[in-house]
Each structure stands twice: as structure tokens, then as C-alpha cells.
């Protein structure tokens, strides 16, 4: 039994089918990344898994304990950092503090969200997701709005925390490198609303862009996404 089981999930908006029969099983503790061009329905699938969209047809089973981190931090501006982390939980102050400590923001628990930097706010959002000990962690381009340096640090933090808490992770991203670096399995959602590719990432832990096999996998994924690799040394899709 998986953490996510999707059978023939379909979703249309105004007659346009963005999900045209998705079959997918995500195992417990598995880190899956979903790639796709913008507008391909990646976020639609994630929102269905999050329970934010009930307009799909087919069968979609998800765990009761799940959390979401969106591209924007979506912290409530009128609640202090700690209250945002423990939102909707009872007597969770101690766990909230521990989660803030894990993302390195223990000293900011009384701060207002508006005073945080983009990276800090996203770390609070991560703490808010993880304090619930989710069985499924849904990440909707969570690092898309961050600068490149902050993104690298967030990747490391996410890997560390996922290693510790071991939720199943479903990461939606348009960043091929990010998908290969973080996930143990990469999916590509094609423009016709089907999963065009489902590949395991058979690369050692602690991999980077120089790891053998990285470039080949990257080229394959980019081809699937319809981007032709440019001459060596030029970064694409960044």
C-alpha cells in the first residue's frame, strides 16, 4: 500500500483536460519529483492530493496526515512565527519550537512574518509543514521564488529534514536539476496531461551536478520536456 494511490485521475478546466488519466503510486518515504512545462497541470495534481480541489474524476487516495508548502510562504501576516507554525494544532508550542529549531529559526518565534526574508519565511513554512509529522509532504515549487544561493541552502535543509522525518514527498517543480538532486524518482507530465516518463534516479546520495550520470539524466528529461540541450556549458531551464 502506498502513501499515494492515483487511478485514472482526470481533471478539466473549461473543457480543456489538464490531467488525462494519471495512474501513480508513491511509496511511504519515497521522494518523487514531478516535472512539466508551465500550465501542464503539475500543480493541479498536487492540489488534488492536498484536498484543495475536488473537481477531479477517478480515484485518488492520500494519507490523512499531509502538509503543503507552496511557492509563496502563505504565512498569516497577523500571527507571529510560532503561532503560524502551530496553526490549527492544540498544545503544540513545544513541537512548534522544536520545528523552528530544526529550520534554524528558533530565535525568530516572536517575529512577525512581514519582517522575515524570503528564505526565512519559506523555512517557517517548512517548519509549519513538518511539525504535523505528515505522511505525505506536498511541495509546490517551494523554492521557485528564492534566489539561487538561498535555494542551494534550502535543498540541503530539505534533504536533511526528509531524511529525519521520512515522509513521502511529492515535489512539483520546473527545475530539472532540482528534481534530480532531491528526488529518488522523477516523473514528467506531458502537455497532453499524461505521465510521459517515470524514471528512478539511480545516483548516489550527496550527488551534485558533476556526479556521473547526472548530465545524461538531465538531457533525457529536458528532451522529454521539449527543450533541446544547448552547447555544453550553457545552463538551460534555469
Amino acid at each position: 500500500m502506498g502513501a499515494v494511490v492515483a487511478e485514472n485521475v482526470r481533471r478539466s478546466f473549461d473543457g480543456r483536460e489538464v490531467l488525462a488519466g494519471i495512474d501513480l503510486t508513491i511509496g511511504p518515504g519515497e521522494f518523487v519529483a514531478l516535472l512539466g512545462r508551465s500550465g501542464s497541470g503539475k500543480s493541479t495534481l498536487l492540489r488534488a492530493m492536498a484536498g484543495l480541489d475536488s473537481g477531479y474524476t477517478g480515484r485518488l487516495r492520500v494519507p490523512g496526515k499531509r502538509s503543503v508548502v507552496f511557492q509563496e510562504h502563505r504565512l498569516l501576516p497577523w500571527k507571529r512565527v510560532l503561532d503560524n507554525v502551530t496553526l490549527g494544532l492544540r498544545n503544540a508550542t513545544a513541537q512548534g519550537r522544536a520545528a523552528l529549531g530544526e529550520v534554524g529559526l528558533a530565535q525568530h518565534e516572536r517575529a512577525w512574518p512581514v519582517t522575515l526574508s524570503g528564505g526565512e519565511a519559506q523555512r517557517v513554512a517548512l517548519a509549519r509543514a513538518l511539525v504535523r509529522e505528515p505522511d505525505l509532504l506536498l511541495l509546490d515549487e517551494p523554492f521557485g521564488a528564492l534566489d539561487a544561493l538561498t535555494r542551494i541552502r534550502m535543498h540541503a535543509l530539505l534533504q536533511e529534514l526528509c531524511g529525519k522525518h521520512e515522509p513521502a514527498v511529492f515535489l512539483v517543480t520546473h527545475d530539472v536539476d532540482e528534481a534530480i538532486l532531491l528526488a529518488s524518482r522523477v516523473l514528467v507530465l506531458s502537455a497532453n496531461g499524461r505521465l510521459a516518463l517515470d524514471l528512478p534516479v539511480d545516483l548516489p546520495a550527496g550527488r551534485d551536478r558533476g556526479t556521473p550520470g547526472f548530465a545524461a539524466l538531465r538531457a533525457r528529461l529536458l528532451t522529454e520536456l521539449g527543450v533541446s540541450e544547448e552547447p555544453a556549458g550553457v545552463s538551460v531551464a534555469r
Partner: protein
Amino acid sequence: MALTQATGAAAPPLVDASAIHRPRTLLVKLPRPVRRAGGPLLLLLLWQLLGDGRILAPPSAVLAAGWELAETGELGVHLLASLTRVAQGLALGIAAGVLFAVLAGLFRSGEDLLDSSLQILRALPTLGLLPLVIIWFGVGELPKVALVAYGTMFPVYINTYAAIRGVDAKHVESGQTFGLGRAGLIRHVILPGAVPGFLVGLRFALTSSWLIMIIAEQLNATSGIGYLMNQAQSWYRTDIIVLGLLIYGVLGLGADVLVRFLERRLLTWRHGFGGA
């Protein structure tokens, strides 16, 4: 200093970067409340110099009248009467405005039922209702309180309702994903998000409450500041008339201070642009 002059371009004249947008230092040294009081004080001074007892009594005469009325206890009685009416009317008006705003803001059926009716009623001039209110409630305290309540309900309703509808759907959504039920969403997301709008409505409500009170008390009352002023008119006592206006003004200013205080307390999370 080693300057590399790669081209033959002439160095432009330089200015100190910190001087480009430095706030002007005029009056800045004084504490904020003192600066806010400066304008009105200057106006008072001018008026004292030009004032004339028969047309417009100068501030000294107004103060003397105030002292006289305070000593007899008359002023306290009238002030208390006015304050009580405004407070009661405001309390009712704010409560009704918030209640309707929450009902119309949260529920589609509430909106259908309430919003159009309230928008129609809002178009009626509040003071135009005075004859009807007198027929319904007589000439006691009730008609005045009712008018103030009626007039203050709309600004509170309109602004709070708009603010509830303006709460970012993304915040509502994130509340939902983190396990907030309907009551939790209202309490943690929607109502706190509507507070800024409510405070705007409150500000308008306080202003209109005094406006309504002035008229209501002059037309039909046996106590209150408006009554005092109306009596003074019969005796050509411009000092007492001005005293009444002054009291209305001070009360209005006090209301403003109250809202500012509430804003500081309730909106500490908004570190927006605070004015230069």
C-alpha cells in the same frame, strides 16, 4: 586614492548619497503628539487676536464661559448626556454593522439577503429619518441613540464586509490545508484579516456619530451639548456656542486618538509605509 581613468570621460560632480532623501529636520525634534497639537494651537492664537464677542467670541471668553458652566455643574450634565447617547448609539451601530458584515461576508445567502437591502437603506440620508424617528420613539433618549446607531452601522458594515471579502484566498486555502475547520478559519484567518477594514469603518462611524448627534440634539432635546448651544443662540451667547463647537471638536479629536491607539495595538503585524 588610485583612480583608474580608462577613458577620457570627465568625472561627474558627486553628492553625498545620504543627503539625497534625508527627511527635513523641521519640527522633527519635538515629540509626535506635540507636533500634532501645534497646528490647532496656532489657529487658536490667531483667533484670540481677531475674535469679537458679538460675532465670534475669542478663546478667552469661551474659556470663561466654559469655567462658569463647569462651576455650576451644567456643563458636566450636558456633556455626560451627549457622551452617553453617542456611546450607546455607537455600541449598537458597531455591533449591528459587524454582525451584518460577518453574515454577508461569510455566507452567500447572507449576502443575498442583507447586502442589497443595506445598500438601499444606506442611500437614505440618516437625518432625513428624524421626523419618522420622533414619531416612532418620541422625544426622549431613544430617537437620538437610534439615529446614531443607524448612521454608524453603514460605514462599519461596508468596510468590514469588503475587508472580509478581500481576505486573500491563499490564506484561507493554507488555513484549510493545515486543518482549520470553518470556525477556525473565521477566527484565525478571516476576522483578523478584516480588522484593518473594520478600523477604517470605525473611523468613519465615529465622525458621523458626532455629526448626527449635533443635529439631533439641536432639534429636539432637553440636555446635551447641542441643546446647550441651541439655548445660547436665543441669548446671542457666541461664547457658549463656540464652547459647544470646541467640545465637539475635542471629542472628535479624542475619537481619532482612540482609533490610532487601536490601530497601533491591533495592527502591529503590518509594518507598512508609516508616512515620511
